[in-house]
C-alpha cells in the first residue's frame, strides 16, 4: 500500500446535522484525487478535519500507514499538509514574498531576511513553473497569479499533500488550463493533490481518481479514466442529470433595454464601466461573461438605479430611465435577482411574507392609504411559496434567515418573476445551489424568455452563460470586448475575450 493519506470511516456531526457519515478517502502517492459533491455534501467538513480545523467523532486518519491526530492547522502544516483556500488569505499591500513568509519569517538579527526568502521563492517558482515575481505587490497582480502565491505558500512550507478548494471558481478558462499544467508539475515533483470541486470537466482533465460524497455519505471512488462525466454526475446528484439546457431557438422581438455609451464609476472611484453600449431584445437571453470585477456589478447597478451614472443613457422600451429612482424603474418593468441574496435580496430578519412584498408593499392590494393589508400580503406570499416551492419551517411566517440558501434564492426568484417584468436581470442566480436547483432556475429563466420577456443574465460560471444565453456579451476591464451568439462560439474564444483579446463581433 502506498497511500500517503487515509481517512477511514470518518464521521462528524454538528448540532442538527450529520455532516460526514462513514466516509473513506484514500490518497495515493503522486495522484490527483478529486473530491466531488454538491454544495453542502460535506466536502469542506471532511477536508477541515484533514487540515485540523475539526476533530472527527469517529474514524481514523492515517499518514503513510500510521495513525495521526491532527489537532490544529499547525499540526497539519508540520505533517506536510497544505491548503489553497477558495478565498485567498493575502495581505494586499504586501509583496508576494512578504505574504509567503508571513508567520515563518526568516530573521537576520532583528530584521526580516527578505532577500534570502525572495531567493527561495524565485527558485521554487522556477522549479514548479509558477512564474511568480517575488517583489510584486499582491494588489498589482492578477487573481490567477494570487492563487499561485497561495500555492507557493504551501510549497515554501514544504507541504507534500496539497488540498485545492474549488480552485477554478475565480479563473478564466486560460488560467484554468495554466493551473492544470501547474498541478501536473507538482505531481511530477512528487506531491499528492486533493482537488475539491463540483466541476466534472476539470476532474476529467486533471484527476486520476475521484471520490464522490452525497449528503454526508460516501458514494464511491472511481477511476476517472474509465468513468464518464454523466456517471459521475449521477453519483453526485443521485439521479441522471441533463447538462444541456433544453430550449428552442430564440425569437427576438423589439429592443427592450438599450444602453448607450454608459460610463459608471466603481467603488474605487475610477471608471468601472467605459463607453458601454448594449441592447437586449424581447424574447432573448443576453449573457454577460467575464471574470469577476470587470464591470458586471457596475452595469447591473446602473440599470437598476442603485449606482449613479457618470454619462450615457439607459432606456427601457424607449423610455429614458437614466435619471429615474429605483422605485420608478421597478414600475417601468425591471426586475432584479441580485448577486448577493443576503446583502440586497432579502431582509433576513423579516419574515418570508414581508420579504415577498419588498418592491410592491406600496401597491394595492398590499396597502391602502399607508396601511398594510396583512390578509392580502399573506395570500400573495402563500401563492408564491406554493408556486415556487419555497420550503421553510413555518411557511410565510418563517424568518428569512432560517431558510436554506436554495430556498432563499427560490423566494427571490419567485418574487421577481411575479412582478411580470419586461426586463429580468439575473445576477449569479445559481450561485451556491445544488444541481437540481440550478436546472430549475435555468428553466424558469428560459420560460421568461419564451414569454417574450428580455432577460439579462450575468454569471461568472462560463458554462451557465454558454448554456442558457442566446447571445453573449464579453466584458473585460469595464469594456465590451465583443458579442457572440451562444451556438457559434466555444469556451476558448470566450476565454480569450474574457482575458481582453478583442474579437467575436463577426458572429452578429
Amino acid at each position, binding site marked *: 500500500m502506498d497511500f500517503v493519506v487515509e481517512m477511514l470511516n470518518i464521521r462528524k456531526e454538528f448540532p442538527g446535522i450529520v455532516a460526514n*457519515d462513514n466516509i473513506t478517502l484514500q490518497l495515493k502517492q503522486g495522484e490527483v484525487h478529486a473530491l466531488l459533491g454538491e454544495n453542502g455534501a460535506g466536502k469542506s467538513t471532511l477536508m477541515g478535519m484533514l487540515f485540523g480545523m475539526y476533530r472527527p467523532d469517529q474514524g481514523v486518519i492515517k499518514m503513510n500507514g500510521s495513525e495521526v491526530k491532527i489537532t490544529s492547522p499547525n499540526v497539519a502544516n508540520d505533517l506536510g499538509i497544505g491548503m489553497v483556500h477558495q478565498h485567498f488569505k493575502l495581505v494586499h499591500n504586501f509583496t508576494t514574498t512578504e505574504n509567503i513568509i508571513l508567520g515563518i519569517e526568516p530573521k537576520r538579527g532583528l530584521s526580516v531576511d527578505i532577500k534570502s526568502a525572495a531567493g527561495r521563492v524565485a527558485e521554487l517558482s522556477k522549479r514548479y513553473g509558477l512564474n511568480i515575481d517575488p517583489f510584486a505587490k499582491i494588489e498589482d497582480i492578477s487573481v490567477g497569479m494570487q492563487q499561485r502565491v497561495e500555492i507557493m505558500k504551501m510549497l515554501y512550507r514544504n507541504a507534500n499533500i496539497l488540498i485545492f478548494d474549488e480552485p477554478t471558481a475565480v479563473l478564466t478558462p486560460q488560467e484554468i488550463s495554466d493551473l492544470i499544467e501547474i498541478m501536473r508539475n507538482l505531481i511530477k515533483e512528487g506531491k499528492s493533490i486533493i482537488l475539491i470541486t463540483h466541476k466534472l470537466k476539470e476532474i476529467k482533465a486533471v484527476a486520476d481518481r475521484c471520490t464522490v460524497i452525497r449528503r454526508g455519505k460516501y458514494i464511491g471512488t472511481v477511476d476517472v479514466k474509465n468513468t*464518464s462525466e454523466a456517471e459521475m454526475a449521477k453519483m453526485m446528484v443521485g439521479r441522471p442529470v441533463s447538462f444541456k439546457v433544453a430550449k428552442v431557438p430564440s425569437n427576438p422581438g423589439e429592443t427592450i433595454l438599450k444602453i448607450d455609451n454608459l460610463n459608471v464609476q466603481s467603488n474605487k472611484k475610477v471608471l468601472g464601466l467605459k463607453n458601454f453600449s448594449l441592447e437586449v431584445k424581447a424574447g432573448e437571453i443576453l449573457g454577460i461573461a467575464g471574470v469577476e470585477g470587470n464591470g458586471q456589478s457596475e452595469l447591473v447597478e446602473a440599470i437598476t438605479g442603485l449606482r449613479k451614472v457618470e454619462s450615457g443613457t439607459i432606456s427601457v422600451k424607449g423610455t429614458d430611465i437614466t435619471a429615474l429612482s429605483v422605485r420608478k424603474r421597478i414600475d417601468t418593468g425591471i426586475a432584479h435577482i441580485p448577486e448577493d441574496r443576503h446583502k440586497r435580496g432579502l431582509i433576513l430578519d*423579516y419574515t418570508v411574507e414581508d420579504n415577498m412584498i419588498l418592491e410592491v408593499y406600496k401597491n394595492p392590494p398590499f396597502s391602502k392609504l399607508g396601511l398594510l393589508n396583512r390578509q392580502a400580503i399573506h395570500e400573495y406570499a402563500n401563492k408564491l411559496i406554493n408556486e415556487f416551492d419555497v420550503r421553510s419551517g413555518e411557511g410565510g411566517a418563517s424568518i428569512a434567515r432560517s431558510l436554506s440558501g*436554495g430556498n432563499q434564492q427560490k423566494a427571490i426568484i419567485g418574487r421577481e418573476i411575479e412582478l411580470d417584468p419586461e426586463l429580468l436581470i439575473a445576477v449569479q442566480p445559481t450561485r451556491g445551489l445544488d444541481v437540481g436547483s440550478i436546472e430549475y432556475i435555468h428553466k424558469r429563466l428560459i420560460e421568461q424568455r419564451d414569454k417574450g420577456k428580455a432577460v439579462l443574465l450575468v454569471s461568472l460560471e462560463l458554462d451557465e452563460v454558454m448554456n442558457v444565453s442566446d447571445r453573449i456579451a464579453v466584458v473585460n476591464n469595464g469594456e465590451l470586448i465583443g458579442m457572440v451568439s451562444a451556438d457559434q462560439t466555444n469556451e476558448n474564444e470566450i476565454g480569450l475575450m474574457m482575458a481582453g483579446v478583442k474579437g467575436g463581433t463577426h458572429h452578429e
Partner: protein
Amino acid sequence: MNRKGLVSLIAVFLGLIAGAVFMLLTGHNPFIGFMFLFQGGTLTLERLGNTLATSTPLILTGLSVAFAFRTGLFNIGTPGQMLFGGFCATVVGLSSDLPSAVLVPLMVITGFLGGALFAAVPGILKAVFNVHEVVSSIMMNWIGYWIVYYTVKAYFTGNMETESRLLPNSATLRSPWLSNLFGGSYINLGLLVAILAVLIIAFILNQTTFGYELKSVGYNRHAAEYGGISVNKNIIFSMMIAGGLAGLAGVVQYAGNANNIQIGVMPTQGFDGIAVSLLGANTPIGSLLAALFFGLLYSGRGFMNAMTEIPPEIADTIIATIIYFAATSVLVERLLDKILKSRQATKKPLIDSAVQNTDNNNTNYGFMPPTEEEKENVPKGDE
C-alpha cells in the same frame, strides 16, 4: 412569552441577584431591602401614582430610543431633545393665556415639534453627509443645554436663578381628578400622552407602509434600497419622530411632573431611555413595561432608605447594576443560545432519522420534485 421577553426577564433577575449580593456584602438583609424597595413604589395608591408619574418620561424617552433603533439609528440625543422639547412647551405655556383645553394640546404639539427639530439636525447630517448620529446628537445635547440655560436666564427667570417661572396650573398636564384618584399623587395626564404614544408608535411600526420602510432600512439598508425605499428620507423621518417622542418626554416632565424647567441640569431620563429601550427589546410595549419597572425602582428607593439601614448610595448602585444587566442583555442572549444549543445537540436520534429520511429518498433533491413527465424526459448518458 417570546425569546426577547425572556432575555429581558433574565436580565432583570440577574440584576436583582447582583443587588442582593451588594446588600449582603454591606451587611444587610436583601429580602427586607427588596421588600421595602418594592413596597415603596406600590404600598399605597399615592405611591403607585408616583411610580407611574416617575415612569412617564421614561416611557417616552425609551420609546424614542427604541424607535430610532428600529431604523438602525442610535439616538443618544434624547436628553437634549427632551430638554429642548420641554423648553419649547414651557415657553408657549408661559407666554400665552389661552384656555387650558387649547393651550395644553398646543404645548404638547410644540414639545413634539421642538424635539423633532432638534433631532432633524443629526438626521439630515447622517443622511446627506454620513456624519455618525451618535457624535452629532451628543453635540446637540450640549447645544440644547446652553440654549435653555441662556434663554431661561434671560427671559423666563422665576424665584430662583436656576429655574424658570412656574407654569400656571392651567398650562400643565396636571389633573386634580387623577391626582385625587391616586391619593394626592403627582400623577398627571402625561401618562395618557405616553400610553397613547406607545400605541401609535406600535401601530406605525407594525401596520403601516411607513413602518415597513423604517424597519427595512434598519434591518438591511442595502435591501431596502434595492426595493426602492429611500434610505435617506427614512433616516431623517425616523430621527425626527424619535426626537419628537423625546420632546414629549420633556413636556410631561416639565409641564406635568414638575411645573417649571431647571437650567444647568441635563435630564437623567434622557440617557435612562437607552437602558429602558434595551431592556424592552427595542419594542414599544417592551419600553412601556421596562419604564414602569425603572419607575418602580426609582420611586421605591427613598422608602428603602427610610425604612432600612441601607444607605442611599447602595440603593443607587443596585439600580445601576440592574440597568447594567439590562444594557448587556446581549450577553444573556448569548448564554441562552448556548444553553439551547447544547440541549439540542443531545437529541441525537431525532436528527439522525431526519438526515436519513432525506438521504434514502431519491426523488427528494431539496428542490422541486420532477413530475412524471419530467422524469421520462431526462436524457440518459452523455450529452
